[in-house]
């Protein structure tokens, strides 16, 4: 390695001959980001694996650049595909942090947009709107949620096409200025890439987000509650377990987001229950415990009977 470097003409004396990847890993803060990712996110093993691989690649790429072996900025644009509530936005935030610490983006902020933010309503409205968002995202990460809505196959005069063209152009020419992450449902993303080959070829990393298992969702529920200083009692925990299994079979199941909504409603019921039943003073325990009744009151548990009622 050292010989290869010293043989390069025109390289000044500041170029190091060796680089300690381990030390780089710790110093750049990549280690902290990856550890935080491991600790704060439940499940998502394949995603974490992919991010670790990507981080390794970027770290090596950075080392190569320092030794004068690489000059081009690698393509960092990514696509996250998975069902709703599987943590795409959260991981995108971490990714922005990771890229910032590795020095691939200058600021490390995340700008999260959907079709509405990019596409205008009349002729000539789209380009300035898209550019405004792009300017905001410079130095950071542009996260386009449900990116496939940008492309409407049925309407060839749709303004989405204009936004796509501007986006592609900037993605290609200003690679060192920002990183684009496209996100959405797996099957629709695939179709989107099929009809927009320009995007497919400009995106280097495709990461699939699997659905959470029931036990992972239960752990997520407990973590969410713990963050707000609530806890489930034993019966409540069992009820939550049952709730998750039932909720999964319902339409519009959005993984962790459904759980968060369910917990919000459970807290509402808990507050009501305490308000109606309490006579006298109550302790912190009662105020922060969610019991089975708070969860079992959900219509998920009696949806069968409700349907029967509706039918009769």
């Amino acid at each position, binding site marked *: 390695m050292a010989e290869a470097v010293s043989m390069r003409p025109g390289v000044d004396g500041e170029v190091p001959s060796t680089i300690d990847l381990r030390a780089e890993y710790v110093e750049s803060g990549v280690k902290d980001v990856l550890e935080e990712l491991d600790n704060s996110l439940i499940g998502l093993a394949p995603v974490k694996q992919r991010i670790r691989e990507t981080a390794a690649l970027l770290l090596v790429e950075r080392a190569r650049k320092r030794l004068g072996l690489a000059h081009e900025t690698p393509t960092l644009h990514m696509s996250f595909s998975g069902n709703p509530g599987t943590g795409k936005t959260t991981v995108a935030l971490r990714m922005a942090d990771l890229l910032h610490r590795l020095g691939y983006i*200058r*600021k490390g902020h995340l700008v999260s947009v959907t079709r509405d933010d990019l596409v205008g309503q009349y002729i000539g409205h789209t380009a300035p709107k898209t*550019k405004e968002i*792009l*300017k*905001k995202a*410079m*130095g*950071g990460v542009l996260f386009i949620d449900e990116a496939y809505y940008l492309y409407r196959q049925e309407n060839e005069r749709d303004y989405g096409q204009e936004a796509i063209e501007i986006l592609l152009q900037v993605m290609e020419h200003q690679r060192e*200025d920002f990183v684009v992450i496209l996100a959405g449902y797996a099957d629709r993303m695939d179709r989107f890439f099929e009809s927009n080959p320009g995007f497919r070829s400009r995106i280097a990393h495709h990461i699939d987000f699997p659905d959470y298992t029931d036990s992972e969702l239960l752990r997520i529920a407990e973590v969410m509650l713990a963050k707000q200083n609530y806890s489930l009692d034993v019966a409540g925990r069992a009820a939550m377990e049952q709730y998750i299994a039932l909720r999964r079979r319902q339409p519009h199941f959005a993984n962790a987001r459904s759980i968060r909504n369910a917990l919000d409603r459970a807290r509402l019921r808990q507050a009501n229950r305490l308000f109606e039943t309490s006579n006298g003073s109550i302790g912190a325990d009662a105020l922060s415990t969610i019991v089975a009744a708070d969860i079992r009151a959900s219509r998920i548990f009696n949806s069968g009977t409700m349907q029967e009622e509706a039918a009769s």
Partner: protein
Amino acid sequence: MHITQGAFSFLPPLTDEQIARQAQYCIDKGWAMSLEFTDDPHPRNTYWDMWGHPMFDNPDAAALIMELKECRKVYGDRYIRFVAFDSTHGWESVRLSFIVNRPAAEPGFRLERQEAGGRSIRYTTRSYAADKPAGERYG
């Protein structure tokens, strides 16, 4: 005649990279950056035309360089400057401005002497470029 106006005017023209770093300094200070252009180089001409809106919410200077390049495509033959506006109470005015683009040829100014009452003389400067109508002054 090389016009000197605003900050850095006695330095050689800034490169885009240097412009970006100065702009980043202003952004980090929380000032709103905007681009202005003109083809009337008279030093008392303070009201230049705006290129787009002031950019309040761009955290990175790359966005400004992008706008500057757009502006140069249209008005590359005129003077373009960056203006940094500080909105904090008590300032509420421009904190820094510097020229980022100038015409290829700057013909300079003519000094006119007007003979007034008695033997007094009034002086005025008139830019050669401004003899032509606006929009046709350079190139």
